[in-house]
């Protein structure tokens, strides 16, 4: 991973993201054209690897643009880690919302960072926002 692959990584992000929009549009369309609503909406917290405000803004924007998901807020905890709150229509439980968001984040960060990004494989299910110090 170096600066030579930076532009191809951006192009791959755009192609992958168009694919994401098409697949998630399709799942919304399927739900709308069949009787009843299969949506199980909920808001999940997701721990991101974003280091700057620009990265977390881009991630929130991409999640919002994708049909069926919506970013509702961000938070920075005591350790400086950035969290986002994602509203999702079809995932059904917090763990799979986190999986989808982390997948998006891995594609985004590998395009945005000049030296690339190797995704860390950690479990999101038991993650919990650390209490802020009372001040």
């Amino acid at each position, binding site marked *: 991973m170096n600066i030579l692959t930076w532009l191809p990584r951006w192009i791959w992000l755009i192609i992958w993201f168009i694919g994401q929009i098409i697949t998630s549009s399709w799942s919304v369309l399927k739900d709308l054209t069949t009787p009843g609503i299969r949506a199980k909406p909920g808001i999940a917290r997701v721990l991101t690897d974003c280091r700057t405000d620009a990265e977390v803004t881009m991630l929130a924007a991409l999640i*919002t643009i994708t049909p069926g998901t*919506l970013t509702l807020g961000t938070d920075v905890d005591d350790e400086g880690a950035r969290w986002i709150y994602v*509203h999702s229509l079809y995932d059904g439980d917090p763990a799979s919302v986190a999986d989808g968001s982390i997948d998006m984040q891995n594609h985004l960060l590998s395009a945005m960072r000049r030296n690339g990004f190797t995704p860390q494989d950690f479990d999101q299910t038991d993650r919990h926002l650390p209490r802020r110090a009372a001040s």
Partner: protein
Amino acid sequence: MDINSLHTVAANFIILLGVLVFVVAAGGLFKFRDTYQRISAVGTAAGPGISLIVIGVFLTVPSWQNAVQLLIIIFLQLSTSSIGTMSIARSAYLTGVKMQPGYFDQLAEDQAEVEDTSDIDEDGDIAQELGKNRAQEPPQY
């Protein structure tokens, strides 16, 4: 089939994809039940929907000048639609709109925790207890 009609077909196909995104959004606006689901559907139409239609229009009249305009339009459209969607959804959440139905809400859990810690003073005592003690002390002049 020559090249000219081929790229017209591609342009019309992409415009139709954009129209499909709009149809999904309009259907979602009627069928979904609460603010978050509806604004989620509408934000999709305002971002990728318009972008796809503009890409299709660009393919019918391709030129370098139009390519620059296309990139500016897509950038502005995607950024403004996503930021607008997020602000509306966030203001709905802050004014206390409930999800119907809501299966899980971890943002509410964390908000409740933050409110709990805000009651704790610098000393670590809980403000409510301090208030109780203060009420028992005689007033000092």
